[in-house]
């Protein structure tokens, strides 16, 4: 079942330097129980994308200028962008949960974690104090925090990074949302802790059947988590496909470059030069008319610079924004 249908979502920031086209015409579907990974370099618009879905873009300077976000649950299909603020508030947290990039800044340092999770539960589910407390403990148990009765009385700074991130996940999951948006939930963590968290998320997904939008720039993490992958470059999706399609048969030159530039453990690659993508990402407030990747692309031809690229000019059968895929 398709839970979320995003069409042509466009978010811009109106700044002194000009209009920043942070998300430009994003289109995708998200199915129940599946994971969509959004990958891309720093500043390409991943966080703005996830905030737009939650309608949390700071306004001004930002604004969602067009598009629709069709959300389909038991109550039927509706466009999140057309809901009133009050209706949207009820969807946030309850139907769509979110985990932020930096766990320390998104937990309130003056309340215990038990307080914060309990508040989310009380707000959306209600129930007596005792019920809320029991549920809080169950959530903390679920995300693998040992001795939850004690831990829930602690403040965020008393927890380690991994614990905090788990508390964030517990908070996001406390109302069993249909969709979980996770914005680089493991980037600030160590590999061994990251492995724990990824395991946990997959397990919870299996158990609760929720859909996940997972934002990251680590292709390794993507390979572990994704069913669908959207590769983002300078505010636009440049390639969308299943995990197998993207990793085994990448079509867009940017995707190909990204995959090649990760060092691997393969024997005989030590000391060899790494393949690279030359050049830098263009500024989002001053994008070229044609393909934004043109200046860094090996296959670039005149057409790439002169003409806007449609979603699938080569008829690959999925979104591949390249004339010469």
């Amino acid at each position, binding site marked *: 079942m398709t839970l979320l249908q995003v069409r042509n979502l466009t978010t811009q920031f109106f700044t002194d330097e000009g209009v920043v086209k942070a998300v430009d015409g994003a289109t995708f579907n998200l199915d129940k129980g599946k994971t969509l990974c959004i990958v891309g370099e720093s500043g390409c618009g991943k966080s703005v994308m996830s905030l737009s879905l939650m309608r949390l873009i700071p306004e001004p300077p930002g604004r969602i200028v067009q598009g629709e976000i069709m959300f389909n649950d038991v109550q039927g299909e509706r466009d999140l962008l057309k809901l009133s603020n009050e209706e949207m508030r009820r969807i946030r947290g309850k139907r769509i949960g979110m985990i932020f990039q930096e766990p320390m800044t998104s937990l309130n340092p003056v309340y215990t974690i038990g307080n914060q999770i309990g508040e989310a539960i009380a707000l959306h589910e209600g129930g007596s104090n005792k019920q809320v407390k029991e549920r809080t403990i169950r959530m903390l148990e679920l995300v693998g925090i040992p001795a939850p009765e004690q831990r829930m009385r602690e403040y965020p700074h008393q927890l380690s990074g991994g614990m905090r991130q788990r508390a964030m996940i517990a908070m996001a999951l406390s109302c069993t949302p249909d969709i979980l948006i996770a914005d680089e939930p493991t980037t600030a963590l160590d590999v061994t802790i990251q492995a724990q968290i990824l395991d946990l998320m997959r397990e919870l997904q299996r158990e609760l059947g929720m859909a996940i939008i997972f934002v990251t720039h680590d292709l390794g993490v993507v390979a572990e988590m994704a069913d669908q992958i959207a590769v983002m470059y300078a505010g636009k999706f440049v390639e969308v496909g299943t995990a197998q399609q993207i990793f085994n048969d990448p079509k867009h030159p940017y995707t190909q470059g990204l995959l090649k530039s990760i060092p691997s453990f393969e024997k005989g690659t030590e000391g060899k030069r790494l393949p690279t993508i030359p050049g830098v990402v263009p*500024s989002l407030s001053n994008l070229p008319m044609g393909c934004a990747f043109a200046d860094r692309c090996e296959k670039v031809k005149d057409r790439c610079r002169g003409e806007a690229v449609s979603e699938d000019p080569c008829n690959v059968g999925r979104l591949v924004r390249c004339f010469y895929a």
Partner: protein
Amino acid sequence: MVNERQTYASMIWRQFKKSRLAVVSLFVVAALVVIALLAPFIANERPILMRHAGEWSMPIFDKASLTLSELDVIKDSSSGDLWFINPPIPFGPTTYDLDSVLSPPTKKHLLGTDGDGRDIVSQLIWGSRISLSVGVVAIGIAAIIGIIFGLLAGYFGGWADMIISRLIEIMTCFPTFFLILTVLAFVGPSIFNIMVVIGITGWTGIARLVRGECLKVRGRQFVHAAVVSGARDGRIMWRHILPHALAPVLVSVSFGVASAILAEAALSFLGFGVPASTASWGSMLSEAQEYMDIGWWLTLVPGSAIFVTIMAYNLIGEALRDAIDPNMKT
């Protein structure tokens, strides 16, 4: 290159410009500086340029030459060879026009005269020199002391920090104004003493600021990089740390200038300031007391001048502070 070329200073200026009031204030301050510098040419009892008996002279720089009123007398009697240019305000700050004592604003005396027949506009213009120099010199002294102490405390920490921080605490506990009064009672009131005393009592704010900035920057990696490259402490403080503290110091300086001007006015008002023969805004106010009920212009004019100047410096300081707000960019 990601951004277009833009230095830190130009970034601050761009933010600063957004505040209309601050830009106006900047013009006010600039105008005051120009007026203070050109005071002898604007308001003087002697001609700017004179030709007499075939010789050119600039009487404004010659205290022995004839004043305008004296020239008026000989003008008719002497031969045709007398020519001179009047300053726009043909009165010095100590020209006693005995024909119009306590005159309200008239065509001749645009803002009236005081009880001794001195022209108010002229006094105002000359008084701005005192205000300006007190502001600049006193805060200059304060800034130098503050920067040095702040750097030493913040960079070396330990004992240096201990001593300087305690000193700052002690200094801030004293009621500065009364400290100044006491000191002046010993060393005697003069404009120089006032500047020095305001300077050496006013450095604590800047020192604290520089110290804080220093602590913030000292742990940054580029400072480590400088240490690793073998740079000496002096160089690190001067090249790597001070430039970061400069913008906030500038903010503090513009507030400081305002309070120094106010302090000078208050001191002069109380009679501890410049000698009575020198015109200053504070002494004008002080003298106006006697004629409170009949000479409204006597208090209104210097009072407004002080008000406008202090407002201008404070507005500039505030706009600067907003412009360097670290939340916006570093």
